[in-house]
């Protein structure tokens, strides 16, 4: 009897134990979306959102913001002219991409969370935007073809907004733009009543994954702290003074 029990235990351990999950950290596919955020009729974001997907996480970032960063580095390099002296590299808002997506979304599969990261002033701050769960989507019976893919409709709710997504099981990636995640196939098209919309533009699978996802270090804070920091930064921008993180007083208030 002991022998049977031992076999059972070993068998059980073997069958349930994951020595190492299939969590390769190399990028296996890159997906591009036309990503927009329109609020009260005004376009806040109109950019190409790039979603890099690896085995352990995914990284959603805006091409416009990436191009701005590259441009900035090149302008500074040119202004320094190879010397140690950095001359002014004057920039105006017109030098930067219009309506770029400044934030990034990191979805960590192991920790089951989607973190939104953005520079607030000089600080790179992130907060948990959503958990990664598949249970919140409701898949309907509606189907249609989008760009040659057979797509199904799914809906969910977040806060007060309704999110409608079309996904395809032909691409077995439970991923999508922004923090959207958890459908049994890649999201091809999505719209939310809060003004977010995205459409698939391109997908490139990586046949021999080599590159890892590279993200900048950030500080994880709560959503409340993040929004407070953003409000402080906006107030500091108006007053022209740097805030120490506390609520800044506007000139009209201080006079």
């Amino acid at each position: 009897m002991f022998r049977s029990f031992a076999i059972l235990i070993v068998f059980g351990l073997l069958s349930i134990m994951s020595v190492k999950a299939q969590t390769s950290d190399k990028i296996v596919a890159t997906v591009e979306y036309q990503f927009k955020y329109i609020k009260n009729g005004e376009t806040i974001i109109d950019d190409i959102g790039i979603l890099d997907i690896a085995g352990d996480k995914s990284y959603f970032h805006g091409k416009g913001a990436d191009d701005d960063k590259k441009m900035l580095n090149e302008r500074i390099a040119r202004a320094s002219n190879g010397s140690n002296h950095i001359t002014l590299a004057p920039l105006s808002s017109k030098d930067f991409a219009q309506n770029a997506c400044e934030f990034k979304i990191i979805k960590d599969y192991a920790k089951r969370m989607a973190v939104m990261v953005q520079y607030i002033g000089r600080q790179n701050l992130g907060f948990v935007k959503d958990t990664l769960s598949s249970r919140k989507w409701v898949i309907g019976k509606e189907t249609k073809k989008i760009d040659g893919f057979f797509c199904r409709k799914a809906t969910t709710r977040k806060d007060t907004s309704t999110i409608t997504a079309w996904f395809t099981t032909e691409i077995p990636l439970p991923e999508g733009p922004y923090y959207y995640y958890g459908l049994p196939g890649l999201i091809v098209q999505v719209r939310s009543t809060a003004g977010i919309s995205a459409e698939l533009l391109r997908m490139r699978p990586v046949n021999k994954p080599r590159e890892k996802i590279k993200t900048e270090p950030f500080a994880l804070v709560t959503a409340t702290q993040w929004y407070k920091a953003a409000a402080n930064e906006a107030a500091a921008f108006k007053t022209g003074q740097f805030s120490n993180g506390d609520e800044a007083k506007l000139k009209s208030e201080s006079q």
Partner: protein
Amino acid sequence: MNVRLICILFFFSATLVAKAQINIKGTIVSTGNKAIAEANVILFSNNHQDILAYTITDIEGNFSLKSVTKDSTLLEVSILGFEKQIIVLGPNISKTFVVVMKPAINNLPEVIIKQAPAPITGNKDTISYSVKAFSDSSDRRIIDVIKKLPGISVSETGQILFNNRAINKFYIEGKDLLEDQYAIASNNLPSADVDQVQVLPDHQPIKALKGSIYSNRAAINIKLRKDAKSRIIGMGSVGAGLPLNARNDEVALLQFNKDLQFINTIKTNNTGKNLDPEILEQNKPSGLSDNYSAGTPQLSVLKPDFPQIDQSRFWFNNNNLIASNILIGVSKNLDLKLNIALENDRISSRSLVQTAIYLPADTINLTEHHSSINAYSKLISGIVLEQNTDNLYLRNSLNGYASRETNTDDLLAPASDQQLLQPLFNLVNRLKAIIKTGNSTVDINSMVNYSTQPQSLTIKPGLFADTLNGGYSYDGLSQKVSGKTFSTENDISWLLRLRNFSISTLSGFEVKNDRTSNALFKIKNGMYLIPGADFTDTINRRFSRVFENVGLAFESGNWNGSIDLKSSYNYIENTEKRVDQNDRLLLIDPALTVRYTINAYVENTLSLSRSTSIINNGNSSYVLVDYRDLLSNQQTIDQIKNYAAVYALNYRNIVRGIFANFDLLYVSTANNFLVDYLYAGILTTRNFVAFPNRTESFGASLNGSKYDDVIRTNFNIGVNYTLNRLNELQQNNLYHIIAEVYSVHTRITSSFSPNISVIYNTSLSAFYNSNDAGGKKLIENPILSLKQNLSLKLFLQPCWSIGGNVTQYADFQRSMSKFESYFADFYFQKTLAKPKIDLSVGADNIFDAKTFKSYGYTANIFTMSAYTLRPRSLMFKVNFQF
């Protein structure tokens, strides 16, 4: 899709659940028994359509699903890198599975491309035009698409301009295969193989000079589609038609690998298509001396100027071209380029020219009927070795040019036959080296050039018997001119960058020797006799100079600019049989350029400069440069001083697709000689005489283009004004001439519907000449010239298209008849998708216009010309791409 039963291991015995309920759990593992996270687990209805439940495995590969159904179900497990598994489940099942996934090749679609909604993207450094957004299904060559891009225009010779400035480089995948002969690429690269046309504004092509030497010219870089980079691509066509056994055949092979690029073409046609622009250098080579001019007289067969219409309408040709261009990547930064082109052509034309020369006391009228043949062969070759890195630029080019040209013209009235032989040989080697160390840059240039051009103009029967043969007739005239030139120019410059400034100094020397011999012979009874000592000469000219240029460039905020001071000490010596001349001249010329960038969209530039040129064309003998022009220049060595002011304002907004530029130009030229024209019947004698002379030119132009993404239409409009004030001596009378040109042009290019493409352009010019001779005005009525063209293409189905264009030309002059010409062309085409073949039939000059008439005048000379046109024609053509 592979469906197979899998081996199932049981952990716990199944437990019964509620009727028609499905409750399944399990683990997804690989064949190595490793848990698979993020796998899709979907429970389908038995028709594999409806999703009953789904989930995603956790970090340990576990999943759990519940659903309610009466029927059997399908459990599908899928994840990248593994084969999809589908398990058939019965109803009322409650089980725990371990699903073992077999590895598989990542079978995602390679690329999904949705048409980019923004046809123009980019930033300040690169503007990217999506070829797909701007092309229609009739476009075959990339030049067809480039012509439609906002902010870009293409001249008739194939020169590409961005914001009204010629581009300085045409790259393909970052490589400069063709240097300045880029028309070979733009005319032969299939547009279907191009992904983007990138414009690089303010492009400095030499990496070692980036940040040091500013450039205000853009470059173009062609980005190919991925599948076009790894194979030989190309296009070709075979055409035959009526009348005159018309033919139009060509084939082009292209390849653009990382270390090897080539473009090889073979073309032949007799349908009026001129292949010469394909091997034309679009930019003037650098390093040549601009401020010294010594004349070997150029002989010519006098013909009317070409009419300002599409050349193929009056070009009776037989043109053949073979060209090969190869770029070999010797190492990462070192390229070897080889190019060779052999071209020949035989062009015939017929024209009538009526010329009126208005003099104060007389009007000279000439009527000439020309029947001309121009036959030439030319061989152009070059070998270039180039290394272009951030700290070192090295380039050596050896270029050779050899041509043999024969021009004949049978003048019906006055009856005479002209024949001109003009072989030309030129060999030039240019070496350039730039070494950058820290904040300083050293630039070395060396150029050696040799050319020879013997010319012979024969005219029969003999003309101007009174002047040349004492009133007795004779058989003919033969003018021979031979020129040989050897020159070398070498300089070294040093550039130092300091914070916002850079200082440069350039020192060098130049030596040029040329020998010109000319003799005019009367031909009588087979003998060649010189009419007199005034008709022959041999001149040896030696020119040498040392020069020093100092420059200061600055950059601060939105400002940048430069101040340059050019100085040279020049020694000129002429040895002529009548008079020896020599002169020493010290020249100092300043120049200032300032550029201010107002914002990311607008920049403006102001340039002020003075330049001095040395004219050394003296030749006291008479040279018959064409059948009725005798030229003599007894002028000593002279200087021409140019004062120039140029202002340019540029606007570009790639987000809104708006490009505009405004240019002002003022040039004042001062010298001490005038050409005195003396008319005696049809004979014109030109003598250079000492006379203080000042000319002025003023020009203004405003151009703008706007691309509307919604209606896929590009609007382009431009207005130009030029004013020239000059003096001329005719019959010893001094004329003050003011020549003004007003012009406006518009162009609309639209593909508002996928099935229609429309191009409309119109150009209206008004030419005003005012000539004042002693208070009496000659020729005041302006000439108005109008051109309108409408081109329409209809894409009826995916593989059928028809198209046509209608063109109107009109010239008006108040006291003369109005000239109007209409042309229409039509084609009908079927396209086969696989293989890519176009079958077309086209008709040109449907209205069968016989001649094209136009007016023209310069100073006080008014001309009416009529050119014989190619008749109505029909062409059957097969185009193919691979």
